[in-house]
């Protein structure tokens, strides 16, 4: 007991200091020691020290359809963020998801912008288009204001308060048995984390739209 009180005091002191002195954290993914390209992977930091993470104002974000593809391929959003689906193509899209998080369908006629969709629970929302069968995109709903995406083989979050977090990495190319989830302590001098892959990456990416010739009809 005598030992614990100073620790708690120290922690409280550090925490009060930490809100002002944010850390810069880099995450990289390796396989057998070699960096792995996992472009677009979503890295979320779930704070473990506080009951609830501070809320950000939830302004809307967009998952566009352009050139018969989703853009971006992977879109991270905090829970309850309105997600718009602007259709920038000349053709109509019929976007759907059968995810556990939320099932929905959106007929997206050219030039129309339907009401945004929000996701109340964290998780992965795969998107498809009933007209253009090859289209695939993912919305990754995170329950934290602290998240970023990997660019190439690593990613950096510029400002995050030091503390204990559950860090999680998600990408569609990760094997289903792979668990990139870890409890970490972010301090001013411990700001680099590395995940080692247990399984090889799947060959999953955003398929390019087929070349459209006006003398051919696409059978979808």
């Amino acid at each position, binding site marked *: 007991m005598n030992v614990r009180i100073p620790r708690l005091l120290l922690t409280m002191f550090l925490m009060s200091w930490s809100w002002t002195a944010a850390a810069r954290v880099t995450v990289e993914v390796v396989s057998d020691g070699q960096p792995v390209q996992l472009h677009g992977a979503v890295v979320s930091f779930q704070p473990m020290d506080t009951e609830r993470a501070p809320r950000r104002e939830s302004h809307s974000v967009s998952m566009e359809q352009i050139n018969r593809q989703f853009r971006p391929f992977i879109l991270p959003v905090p829970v309850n963020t309105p997600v718009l689906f602007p259709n920038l193509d000349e053709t109509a899209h019929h976007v759907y998801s059968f995810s556990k998080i939320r099932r929905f369908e959106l007929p997206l006629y050219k030039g129309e912008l339907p009401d945004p969709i929000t996701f109340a629970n964290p998780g992965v929302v795969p998107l498809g288009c*009933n007209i253009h069968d*090859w289209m695939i995109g993912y919305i990754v709903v995170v329950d934290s204001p602290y998240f970023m995406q990997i660019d190439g083989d690593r990613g950096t979050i510029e400002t995050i308060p030091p503390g204990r977090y559950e860090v999680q990495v998600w990408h569609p190319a990760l094997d289903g048995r792979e668990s990139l989830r870890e409890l970490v302590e972010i301090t001013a001098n411990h700001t680099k984390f590395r995940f080692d892959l247990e399984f090889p990456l799947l060959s*999953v990416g955003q398929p390019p739209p087929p070349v459209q010739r006006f*003398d051919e009809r696409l059978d979808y």
Partner: protein
Amino acid sequence: MFTRIALLSLVVLCQVAWAQSETSGFSIRGVTDVGYANTSGAKSWLRGGSGKLRFDEDDNDELQLLDIGIAIDYAFDLQSKFTVVGHRYDGDFALTEAFWEYRPLNDGAWRGRYRVGAFHPSFSLENTGPLWTSPYTVKSSAINTWFGEEMRIIGAEGKWTWIRDPHNKSKHRFSLFGALYAYNDPMGAMISWRGWSVHDRQIGLNGTFSIRDLPILQIIDHSPDFEPFMEIDDRPGFYVGSEWTLERRFRLQLVHYDNLTDHTLRQAGQYGWRTRFSQIAFHWRMGNGYEVLGQFLAGNTLMAKDGLDNDFEAAYVMLVKSWGRHRLAVRWDVFRVVNQSLILYDDNFEEYGDEDYDYDDDDYEYNYENYDYNDELGNSQTVSYSYLFGDSWKLSLEATRIWSRQDSRMHFGQNPRLAEKQVLASVRYYF
């Protein structure tokens, strides 16, 4: 000529008037095709000759309006639409398709597509262009030419595709499809009595056509006009198919078709033909713009009680190379019809026999006047170069040679062997 220009202008006006959109409501799309054909060989079957092509020497110096095709879609929403397709060929109007299509959202792991009405079945890997045109050549292969003439699904069709892992867009897909249909009972007459053909003209649902005046037609009191889309026995036919696709690279398809017609029946000068066949087809996109397509079909058709019994087979292999706006397609077709039961007809159309007949023996002295010869053997080579210009124009230059041996030509004092050649230049406008 003025009529043709007027019609073309009408099409362009239609396009302006009906701005194409994919929102619910009407939209219009289509194809117009104008060209020159230089043909040598024989009079076209469309003029009652023995030639297999759509045009013959009489057409050599004339600009041809190959096709004006218009499709009108009415979309109820993004999942359901009604489509009507009509073509105008050589002055005749052909209503080729009229159907309702429904593509509901299923649960992601499988998807369904349903069609009800009159339409081309889901199993041509060659005629995948707008309005059932081929994107590779102007004239379709012998198989698909026949499909465009004598086959139409007038009924209901379903296609169910299973995707192993929809969230990751698994590379493998499996489909099952099939249809129940009516009004296809006289199918088989064309390949039996005219033989296989290579052209681009589809027959309308309301369409009839006449062929050579074969002696058998009078003996059995067949109407001089053939009507392929008739119901004679009030019994539906079916087809079933399955397909495996590996991404967009490879597609393999198996189909079995059987019109289940009661071939002992006749109605209004038309006979019921029991026609069935099996087909295997593939389409392989090899990369770098190279593609190979192939289709092989084998079947049998029966007509009249103890009457005509023909086996038929046809196949093609097509090599395609596309680079930029250019495309070169080379297709080799082979086809044949084999009489299984040669009809020696008398006035009562009852007697037949083939015991004295050896159709492979060139020295055999034919007593052809009393036989209905359906045997045919042939092949065809097509080389087609096309160039896309603008957003909607396509120029095609196509050379075709067809060689065939058809015993029925002896009825008309012709050599059974015939080589036909055609050079075709066409300009297509897609809208």
